[in-house]
C-alpha cells in the first residue's frame, strides 16, 4: 500500500509543524495554552489505545483512530468537539474504515469499563458525533502508517532484532502529531535510526544507500527524543482535569 502514498489524500493533507501547533481560537479564548492543548491530545491518545485494547482491535485501527483525532483538532476546537466524545467516536469510525468493525454498543460497553471520571456519553451521542467527524475529516478516511514500512525496511537492513524496540517507538510517536506532518516511512526510518543508536548497531551505510534526506530523519528522531524527555513522568491527573475544565467553563 505504501506504493501509492504519494498520490493519496493522506500525503496531500500533510501539514507544516507550525500549522499543527495551533490552539483553536475558541479554546484559546478560554485560556487553553499550547502546552495544555498538547497534553489533552496525549491523554486522549492514551485513552484511545486503552479503549482499543479493550475492544481488541488491531494496532492499525488504534493508529488510524488517533490520526483522525489529531486531524480533527487541526480544524475544530475542543470547546465545540468534546475530546471525551471525539476520542471513542474516532475509534468507532476507524474500526469501520479499517474493516474491523466494532459494534457501537460494544464501544459504549468498554467505555464504561474504563474506570474514569465523566464519560457520560451514550450510543446516540457517538452516532451523532460520527457524522460530525466525517464532515470535520472532509470524508478522507484512508490513513497510512509507519508499521508496514517498518517491517519492510527492517527486512532490508537485516536487523530483525530491532523490531520490538522500533515498533514501540512508533506506537509512542502517535502521542505526538508526527503522523500529520511526515510521510509514514520517514517516521519508520526515524524510529529505526533511534533504535539502532540505542542498540549500538551501525546503520550508517544502509541509510546512505537509501537516498533519503537524513536531515529530516534526524529531525524526527530529535523530536521523538525531546518528547520522551519532556514527558518522562506521566502527566498528573489534576493537570489534565484543570485543562479540561477550562474548556467547559463559560468564557
Amino acid at each position: 500500500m505504501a506504493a501509492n502514498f504519494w498520490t493519496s489524500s493522506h500525503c496531500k493533507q500533510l501539514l507544516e509543524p507550525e500549522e499543527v501547533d495551533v490552539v483553536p481560537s475558541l479554546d484559546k479564548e478560554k485560556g487553553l495554552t499550547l502546552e495544555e492543548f498538547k497534553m489533552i491530545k496525549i491523554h486522549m491518545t492514551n485513552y484511545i489505545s486503552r479503549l482499543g485494547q479493550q475492544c481488541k482491535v488491531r494496532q492499525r485501527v488504534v493508529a488510524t483512530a488517533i490520526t483522525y483525532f489529531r486531524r480533527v483538532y487541526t480544524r475544530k476546537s475542543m470547546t465545540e468537539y468534546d475530546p471525551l466524545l471525539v476520542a471513542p467516536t474516532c475509534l468507532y469510525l476507524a474500526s469501520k474504515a479499517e474493516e474491523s468493525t466494532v459494534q457501537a454498543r460494544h464501544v459504549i460497553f468498554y467505555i464504561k469499563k474504563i474506570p474514569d471520571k465523566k464519560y457520560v456519553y451514550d450510543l446516540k451521542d457517538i452516532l451523532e458525533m460520527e457524522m460530525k467527524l466525517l464532515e470535520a475529516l472532509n470524508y478522507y478516511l484512508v490513513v497510512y502508517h509507519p508499521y508496514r514500512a517498518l517491517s519492510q525496511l527492517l527486512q532490508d537492513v537485516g536487523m530483525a532484532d530491532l523490531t520490538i524496540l522500533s515498533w514501540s517507538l512508533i506506537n509512542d510517536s502517535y502521542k505526538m502529531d508526527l503522523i500529520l506532518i511526515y510521510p509514514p516511512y520517514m517516521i519508520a526510518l526515524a524510529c529505526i535510526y533511534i533504535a539502532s543508536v540505542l542498540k549500538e548497531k551501525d546503520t550508517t551505510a544502509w541509510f546512505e544507500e537509501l537516498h533519503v534526506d537524513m536531515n529530516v530523519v534526524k529531525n524526527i528522531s530529535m523530536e521523538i527524543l525531546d518528547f520522551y524527555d519532556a514527558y518522562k513522568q506521566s502527566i498528573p491527573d489534576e493537570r489534565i482535569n484543570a485543562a479540561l475544565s477550562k474548556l467547559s467553563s463559560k468564557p
Partner: protein
Amino acid sequence: MAEPNPAADPTQSKRVADRYLKREVLGEGTYGVVFKAIDTKTGQTVAIKKIRLAQYKEGVNFTALREIKLLKELKDPNIIELIDAFPHKGNLLLVFEFMESDLEAVIRDRNIVLSPADIKSYMQMTLKGLAYCHKKWVLHRDMKPNNLLIGADGQLKLADFGLARIFGSPDRKFTHQVFARWYRAPELLFGAKQYGSAVDVWAAACIFAELLLRRPFLQGSSDMDQLGKIFAAFGTPRLPQWPDMVYLPDYVEYEFAPAQPLRSLFPMASDDALDLLSKMFAFDPKVRISAQQASEHRYFSSVPAPTKPALLPRPPLKGESLKSRPLDFNSQEGPVVLSPPRKSRRVMLNREGLEGNHQVMNMGGVRQMGETTSHSSHVPMSVDLADLFERRSPPRPTLNSADRSHLKRKLELDLELTPNEK
C-alpha cells in the same frame, strides 16, 4: 450563494442544503434512495444518494462508508466522481456526477449496433479505470456491465465501490463471495480467500466477451455450474496450466472437457481481440494479464482505432423525454413504485422464463440513474417483450440475498477481533 432557479420548475424542485435542486427519484439503492438534482453552483446535473441513518443502530452504513473512503482516493476520468458529501436532516447525502446510462443498457439495446471500434473503446475505458484502481491498490470486486456507467459525453466510468477493498496486505484473507456469479473468476469459485487484482481482470474479460456476443458469456446457475460453463468453454485446466488450483479450499476435480477454439466462440472477433481475451481469461491468476498490461495490448493500437467516446452509440437520449414530461412517466406505469424501473423490467424478464425470481435487489444505487426514463418513457414495451421472448436468457444474477447474508457473515469473520459477546 448560487442563483436560485425556481422559475424552471417551481413545483418540483426542492432545495437540498441550499445548493442542490432536487428532481425526480432515480431509483432505490442498497442503502437508500437515489435522486436526480441540479447543482446550482455549477449547473451540473448530479445524482444524490441518500444514506438513511435512522434505521441503523450502527451509524453510517458500512458499505456506504467503504464507498466514500475509496472514492475519496480515486480521481480518474474512468471512475465515477464523488463530488460532495454532507449530512442533511439526519441522513448522509453523497453527490455523484450524473450518468446517463450503463453498459448493460448498451449491450441489451437491440437497436444499437456495436462496431469493433466501439467495443474496443468501451473495453479501453473499462481497463483504464480498472488499471487505475489497481494502481491505487483497490480491488473493485463487483465488475459487471451494470456497474459501468456511461456519461453524457460517452465516457465510461467504474461505479459502485460498495464491495471494493484495499488489498495492501498480501496475507489478509478476504471473502470469496464477491461479484455477481457470471463474472466470478475460477479461483473465487474454488473458494480462494487470498486473491488479487486478477479477479477484476477475469470479470473484465467476461464483459469483453459480453460486448462481442451481446449476451452474458458464461451464465452459470450455481457456483458449480459456473465452473462447468467456464471449463466447457476453455477446457478443464490441467495441472501445469494452473498448479495452485488443487490447493484451493473448494477445489473439486471436474470431468475433463476439451477446450473449444476461441475462434469458434467468438467468430466475429479479430486476432488481436482473441489474443487479449485469451490472456485475460488465463486460468492461473498469476499468469493472467494485468489490467495495465491489458490496456496496453496491441489490440488497442491496431486498426480500427477505438471510437471516440463522444461518438459511441448509446441508448436513445433519456434526458429529452424527461424534460418534456417530467411527471408523466410515473403515472404511465400505474401505481407509483419506489423501485427503479430497471428492477421491474428484470422482474418481467424473469417471468418470461420462470416464475420464481430471487434476484430482486441490486447491490448499489447510482447505477440505476438514468434508467428510469430510458425504460418507462422511451423503450416501447412490445419491442422489449418480443426481444425477451426470443432470448429467454436466465435472469442476470446480482448478489442475491443468500449470497449477501453469506457475505455479511464472511465479512464478520474477516474481522480480527474476537467476538466480545454472544
